[in-house]
């Protein structure tokens, strides 16, 4: 078993090394084969791991002492259990599909960039696996920063464009802010519990000796870390910019896997969170706020990937809402389904962009449904799934979340539902503007438009299927007893936050309500955008189009002042104050020297006079002042 786990991690690493070192002389075909093969291999082993876990529970494997200082012991350990095995499947599975897709998508790249791309992608999978397999917070942190690095590298993949690089830096730095909180949380745990291993921290004993305040502080810090990685308020602004990267990257990192690391972390430490109700509330509110904010912004975006990006932020908000309401299973469930349909949507949009020759502005598209049949169909499926229409996967997971929100507080439910409706609205706006109506682009674009190659469409189809059936692992009790296999499966690692209190009738009612309203929304969108004509946004729409001016606000409040202050320090404090102080001493000595010279007047009379005067003084001191 422990060898399997190691192999799961090592395959992508090997892929990274081979492609990275050999990118100059290896052929594209080999590179592609190597990259996909490695991921496929680790996918196979992940399945094995999953089955073993299903058979006989999770286990912790300790490989060697990473850091072992005095009382502090940080082993290099992996923990395989229900939660991590699910994530293993998602990561390697979706990852594999996206690798395959990429082979087609990145064909035009020159082959050392091709190799670079796949090595980064493998490296990402490697770090993501480290993250989920890590048996303690430090190993998790290693993966945590590793995925941050890979997202940095891949966002800035086309490093000729400086704004891409800026976006990459932004992503990395914002993640760093979150990571700092994460680190401090780890230190707090070391100080209070004396260990970083999950197995010890989440043991009843250590949980018992943890005061409520400490638990609150730690969980809050962890949550801040999560906001950084999973793009929640206030650290979400990097994710939309991250769309600068190649589209498969957006699909893999910024939709399916990396951004869900925060959810994984919190789900992983659910026992800790259960001790801190305050944090739970905060998580719920922040999640919901993010969901709403992102949804509103998504309403007015015209870049196909930006829309998806904001919808991702919004969906992540939903997941945090679920976490905040204690419905960890629902959150994980939504992570899974979201991985399917959001990856699908991104890849679909990628196929669209591919067809449009790199153009991303939906206002110049339209009527593509005839040209890109498969893409269109899969995209529709994706939209339905995300909108949450039964029996597509999105419905089940989102419904679970809404339900838990309702249990916590009907108001939350109301807002969440509203957000869900917005989601449906802007997704179908996107769909209709892109595919229906008539083509609004230029002539040669129209000629250029064509269906993507097989290597890209196959993954689309597979993902589409998954987004259709993916929901059936978590069918609610009301429909079918024991339908919630996922919940069953996860129950050993996740203590549900209390049982369902809602009566079946209300539950039916709520489902009906949400589905009905969603469908209404879709129809409304159909009439609104069936044949869309571009017009400038005005008033409130403009605010939304400019994302509530949040970026500008951050610049104004934090970035520019820091810059100015740095300049001030550099040019004023450093130069004029500190350094001049130092040099001033030297100047003082020089000046003193120039004055002292004058004492040496060259006149014998003055010399004798000075001598006599000093004699008189010393005599006076000796005979009259000293007693």
């Amino acid at each position, binding site marked *: 078993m422990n060898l399997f786990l190691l192999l799961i991690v090592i395959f992508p690493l090997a892929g990274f090394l081979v492609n990275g070192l050999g990118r100059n002389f290896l052929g594209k075909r080999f590179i592609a084969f190597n990259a996909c093969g490695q991921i496929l291999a680790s996918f196979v082993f992940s399945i094995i791991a999953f089955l073993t876990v299903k058979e006989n529970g999770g286990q912790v494997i300790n490989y060697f002492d990473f850091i072992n200082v005095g009382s502090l012991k940080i082993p290099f350990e992996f923990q395989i259990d229900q939660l991590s095995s699910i994530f293993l499947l998602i990561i390697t599975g979706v990852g594999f599909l996206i690798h395959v897709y990429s082979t087609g998508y990145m064909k035009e790249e020159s082959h050392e960039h091709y190799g670079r791309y796949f090595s980064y992608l493998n490296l990402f999978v490697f770090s993501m696996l480290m993250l989920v397999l890590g048996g303690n917070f430090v190993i998790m942190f290693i993966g945590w920063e590793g995925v941050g690095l890979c997202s940095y590298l891949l966002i800035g993949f086309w490093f000729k464009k400086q704004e891409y690089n800026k976006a990459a830096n932004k992503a990395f730095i914002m993640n760093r802010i979150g990571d700092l909180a994460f680190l401090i949380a780890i230190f707090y745990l070391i100080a209070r519990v004396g260990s970083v291993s999950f197995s010890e921290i989440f043991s009843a004993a250590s949980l018992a000796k943890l005061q409520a305040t400490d638990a609150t502080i730690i969980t809050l810090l962890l949550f801040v870390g999560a906001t950084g990685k999973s793009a929640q308020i206030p650290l979400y602004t990097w994710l939309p910019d991250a769309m600068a990267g190649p589209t498969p990257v957006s699909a893999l990192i910024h939709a399916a896997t990396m951004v869900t690391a925060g959810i994984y972390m919190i789900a992983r430490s659910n026992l800790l969170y259960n001790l801190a109700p305050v944090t739970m509330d905060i998580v719920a509110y922040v999640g919901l706020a993010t969901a709403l904010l992102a949804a509103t912004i998504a309403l007015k975006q015209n870049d196909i990937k930006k829309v998806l990006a904001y919808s991702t932020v919004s969906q992540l908000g939903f997941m945090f809402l679920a976490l905040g309401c204690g419905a960890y299973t629902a959150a994980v469930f939504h992570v899974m389904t979201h991985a399917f349909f959001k990856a699908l949507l991104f890849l679909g949009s990628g196929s669209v962009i591919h067809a449009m020759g790199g153009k991303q502005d939906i206002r110049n598209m339209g009527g593509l449904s005839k040209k890109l049949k498969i893409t269109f169909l899969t995209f529709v499926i994706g939209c339905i799934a995300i909108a949450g229409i039964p029996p597509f996967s999105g419905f089940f997971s989102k419904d679970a979340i809404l339900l838990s929100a309702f249990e916590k507080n009907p108001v939350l439910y109301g807002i969440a539902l509203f957000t869900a409706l917005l989601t449906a609205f802007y997704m179908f706006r996107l769909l209709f503007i892109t595919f229906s109506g008539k083509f609004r682009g230029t002539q040669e674009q129209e000629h250029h438009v064509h269906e993507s190659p097989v290597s890209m469409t196959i993954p689309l189809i597979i993902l589409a299927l998954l987004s259709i059936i993916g929901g059936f692992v978590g069918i609610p009790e009301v429909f079918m007893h024991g339908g919630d296999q996922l919940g069953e499966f996860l129950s050993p690692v996740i203590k549900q936050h209390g049982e369902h209190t809602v009566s079946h009738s209300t539950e039916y009612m709520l489902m009906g309500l949400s589905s009905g309203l969603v469908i209404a929304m879709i129809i409304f969108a159909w009439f609104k955008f069936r044949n869309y004509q571009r017009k400038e946004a005005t008033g409130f729409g403009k605010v939304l189009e400019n994302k509530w001016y949040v970026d500008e606000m951050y610049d104004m409040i934090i970035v520019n002042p820091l810059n100015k202050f740095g300049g001030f320090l550099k040019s004023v404090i450093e130069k004029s104050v500190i350094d001049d102080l130092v040099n001033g001493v030297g100047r003082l000595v020089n000046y003193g020297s*120039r004055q002292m010279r004058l*004492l*040496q007047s060259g006149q014998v009379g*003055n*010399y004798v006079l000075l001598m006599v005067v000093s004699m008189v003084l010393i005599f006076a001191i000796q005979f009259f002042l000293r007693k």
Partner: protein
Amino acid sequence: MNALILSAILGVVMMFSGILLKSKAMIRNLAIGGIVLLLLVNFLEMSGTVLFRIDTKEMIAFDSFSLLFNSIAFVSTLIYLLLSARDIEKVGVNYADYFALIFFILCGITLTSSFKSLLILFLGIEIISIPLYILTGSDKRNLKSNEASLKYFLLGAFSTGLMLMGIALIYGAMGTFSTDSIGAFTETKPSALLIAGMLLLLFSMSFKASVAPFHFWTPDVYDGAPTVFTSFMATIVKAAVFIAFIRLFDGSFGFRQNQWQLFIAILTAATLFIGNITAVFQQSVKRMLAYSSIAQAGFMMLSLFAMNTDAKEGLLLYTAAYSFATIGIFAVLIKMKDFTFDGFNGFAKHQPLLAATTTIFLLSLAGIPLTAGFLSKFYMLKAVMINDKNLWLGIFAVLMAAVSVYYYFRVIQAMYFKEGNAGQTLEISPAFKWTLVLLAALVILLGIFPGLLLNWLYF
């Protein structure tokens, strides 16, 4: 005793050699041979064989301390002559007499390093001073030299007057001139006569040792005198004066330390301050060295302040280190055309060996480790710090040492890092070079194994 009498005889011999021998070389070699002889007999006395047994009635006593210092002085003089004897001949026609005077001065030095009676101290100081007045003025055509010698003479005579007054008052209080019986008299409250006399002696000795505020003659005289003789009086003579200084105050007034320690502290601080600070702005290396000699005097004063075993050992080490380094620098300086700092620009390019040795000497003066200069300064500081932790004086001293680095390194910078053609047309005899190298080696050796020197005190 050997050295005392022999030096007097040699003085006379040199006097007549001017008439008998015609070639400069022979006179020079005679002088060098004389010094070697002097060194030899001094070693003999150190090893216990006294050639002349004369009852001095406890007025003179040659103990290991004085003998060791004598040999330091003789060694320095030997090196001095080896390096600069030719340049002595350049000063004037009657060069034999210069050598004679130097030997007379050495005679005076043996007296000041070994006196037991104030009378001998007085005579010794005078025997040192009077020839120095002459040597200072020996460059007769040069107005600066004249001026220097007249200034030196007037101020020196004045300080002699002070010293005599002090001796007289002490005699009045004690009824004797013997330092031992003065020191033996340990009354609770010393009489005002004694204190006044002691202070007057302090002043006059401070004058001879160029301690502020009695230092004013030093820069002018050192600057005006012919550089060869500046080298001599800035090193060997000054060292001798300090030995006399510490001998006097240790022997006669050791018991009354609390009476004068404060003043020594004040004078020390003043000397360190004036010497170092004023040296910073000098333009001529020669004058800078004059001020640096004041600064170094300030450091030597620390030994008087502390007045313990460390202090005495340290003072011997200091005199050796300081004399060696300064003689070396002057020997190079004499060769230079102009004495300004810029006069050294690019010296290293044309005279790498001289530059390297000069650098070592400068480092030693600045008190950089691995040179004798560091250890001697270290001894001084150690003596002071051990001495009921006089922290502030130590801190002040090191601050001033840091300042001293400034002006010493200006020379190094000029030699190595500035463009110029100093020493381009200089032809240097290999003998000179090798002597310099040996001297530098000596400086470093003493900087690593001070025991080589100090162990002579105990055997």
